[in-house]
């Protein structure tokens, strides 16, 4: 930082060109709720009698799985900071596996895959909680 910049920061009053957003509210619970929907739809799928209901179930499941990705990406790109990564070096890999798993859940109605997604989100949530306590 140049001397002039430092001086100007000390002496010259700021005018705010701010955005009140981002709101700073982050919670892996958002991703988890969507993943729970994915899992529950997978469980219900075999018991749906009508083809229309099955179509609809698949459609909604894919939407929810996409929302899981979206919520995880927001945590990844907006919430987690380099210092979190230092303490949790597997974070990138974990997010990668979790979002990949969300993709897998779009392709299948196998509830075991839905459960894997929930488990991965719980791992992300554990890291998130740890950063909050730090």
């Amino acid at each position, binding site marked *: 930082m140049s001397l002039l910049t430092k001086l100007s920061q000390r002496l010259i009053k*700021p005018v*705010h060109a701010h955005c009140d957003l981002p709101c700073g509210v982050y919670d892996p619970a958002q991703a988890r709720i969507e993943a729970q929907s994915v899992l529950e739809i997978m469980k219900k799928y075999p018991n749906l009698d009508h083809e229309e209901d099955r179509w609809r179930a698949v459609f909604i499941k894919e939407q929810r799985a996409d929302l899981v990705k979206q919520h995880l990406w927001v945590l990844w790109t907006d919430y987690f900071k380099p210092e979190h990564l230092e303490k949790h070096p597997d974070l990138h890999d974990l997010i990668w596996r979790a979002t990949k798993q969300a993709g897998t859940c779009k392709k299948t109605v196998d509830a075991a895959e839905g459960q894997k997604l929930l488990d991965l989100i719980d791992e992300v949530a554990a890291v998130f909680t740890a950063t909050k306590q730090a």
Partner: protein
Amino acid sequence: MLIRRVSGKSMTPALRPGRLILARRNIGKHLKVGDIVIIRHDGLEKIKRIALLRDDEIYVLGDNSQASTDSRHFGWLPLSAVYALVVWPRR
């Protein structure tokens, strides 16, 4: 004349964070759409551009709408909220 330092990104690319500006307290009756003004709002001096003008109110926007909290959120402001008119840079 006031000298101020821009903090935040809502006026990019015209005014980037950290740049210094000059503003005139004596505004007169010459405000026009497109002018950059310092407003006093919520206890802060904020910098925005006038987007609309009517009798005694202004509607201000940040140039960088994705990263700006402005009249879209807090509505029209009375002219008395204008604290100074930015004279440098000119646009």
